[in-house]
Structure formats: structure tokens, C-alpha cells
């Protein structure tokens, strides 16, 4: 089980702020997790399309596609940040 968090435009598009998910065995990193989420439907495909400016964090550290995802991790997806 992992915790998934969505922020800003992604939270609104998915209509989802957080969820607990049971991952299939072949989801081992941010890249394969993104691929798995894309299979949920057209809005997921669109927002998480390759080349879209989406960022991910694993356990509150900025991550890239190769960052491992393990059981009990907190994984967040969000647009590029715009604070300050």
C-alpha cells in the first residue's frame, strides 16, 4: 500500500487529493507508477502524458522517473511549482 497525493491542477482534474493504493508487482519506480496511473482513463492519460510538465516527489523529496517506489511510500504528483 502506498499513499498517493495530488496537488493544484492535478488535484482538480482528478477530483482527488489523496488515496491509498495497492500497487501491482511491476510498479517499482515513479516511471512505472505513472504508466499504471495513465491506464485509469482519459483525464489521467492527458494530465500524465509523456512530455507534460508534471513533477513527482517520493517521501517529500523531489523525484524523477527512476526514483524507486516501495511499500508505505508517500508519492505526490503536481505541476511545476509557482510560489514566491
Amino acid at each position, binding site marked *: 500500500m502506498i499513499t498517493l497525493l495530488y*496537488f493544484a491542477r492535478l488535484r482538480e482534474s482528478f477530483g482527488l487529493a489523496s488515496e491509498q493504493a495497492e500497487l501491482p508487482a511491476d510498479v517499482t519506480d515513479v516511471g512505472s507508477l505513472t504508466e499504471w496511473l495513465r491506464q485509469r482513463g482519459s483525464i489521467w492519460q492527458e494530465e500524465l502524458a509523456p512530455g507534460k*510538465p508534471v513533477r513527482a516527489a517520493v517521501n517529500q523529496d523531489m523525484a524523477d522517473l527512476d526514483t524507486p517506489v516501495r511499500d508505505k511510500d508517500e508519492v505526490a504528483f503536481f*505541476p511545476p511549482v509557482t510560489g*514566491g
Partner: protein
Amino acid sequence: MTVHVQTEDFDIGAEILKLRQGNTGIGAIASFVGLVRDLNKDTAVTEMVLEHYPGMTEKALIEIVEEAKRRWNLINALVIHRIGPLRPTDQIVLVVTSSAHRHEAFAACEFIMDYLKTRAPFWKKEQTAEGAHWVDARESDETAAQRWIAASN
């Protein structure tokens, strides 16, 4: 070293006084205040909402300040970033750095702002007469952050 994420406004004068207290070696204090402007890309903004990632935001800000302290001889540093609804002319962010000498205070203050803009998880949603929209990240902010990677300071 202090990092605050809060809905409340802040008082730069009071914050600088607190930061100075008890340290007679400070020769230079650089500070920055970011404000909500009423114009963003030619559409009047009536309100904006700042969303953040609780937990990660504070962690990211602490890491940015720690990196600044590794790069320059800082005596102290403070970051306050507001969240929630904000209106034009409201204060958004305060960064204060203190050092013995001015160049280190200036460089660290600008570095913290540049890194905060590209690495701290905040997102702005603007309300205009034509509706609400999420603010896009700017290429120029990424460029500003990148130059600290090339340069040592």
C-alpha cells in the same frame, strides 16, 4: 534559522529585530518581500489562492536555507511564506539573511528566493474577471535558479 509557512501576514521590521537579537557581529542584513501584483500578463487579478504540500514545503524550505548556509557565511536566515487566499498588494513571502558582510547576505537572499521559486511546493491559482486559472511556471525562474548551479556563488 527559521522557516514558517502560515496564513497570517508578517511584519518585516519585527522579524528583522528578532533575527538581530543578541548578535553583535552582524554587519549586513539583506531582505526580500514578494507582493501580489494587480496585473499578471495583462489581466487584473482580484484574488489568488496559494496551495502547498504540508510537510514537504517546510522540508524543502529548510533544505534551501541549509544549502545557502553551506555556500555563504551566514549568521542567520529566515523564510516566511504565506498560504491561502491573498489579494493584490498582500505580502506573499519574506526572506531575510544576516552576515558579517553585505555580499554574502545579498547573494544568499537572492539564492533562497531563486530556489524557493523552483523547488518549494507552492502553487498559485489566480482569480480574474475572466475566471480562475493556475499560474504557469516561468522559464525565467528556472534560468535564475540554474545560474547558481553553474556559479559557486
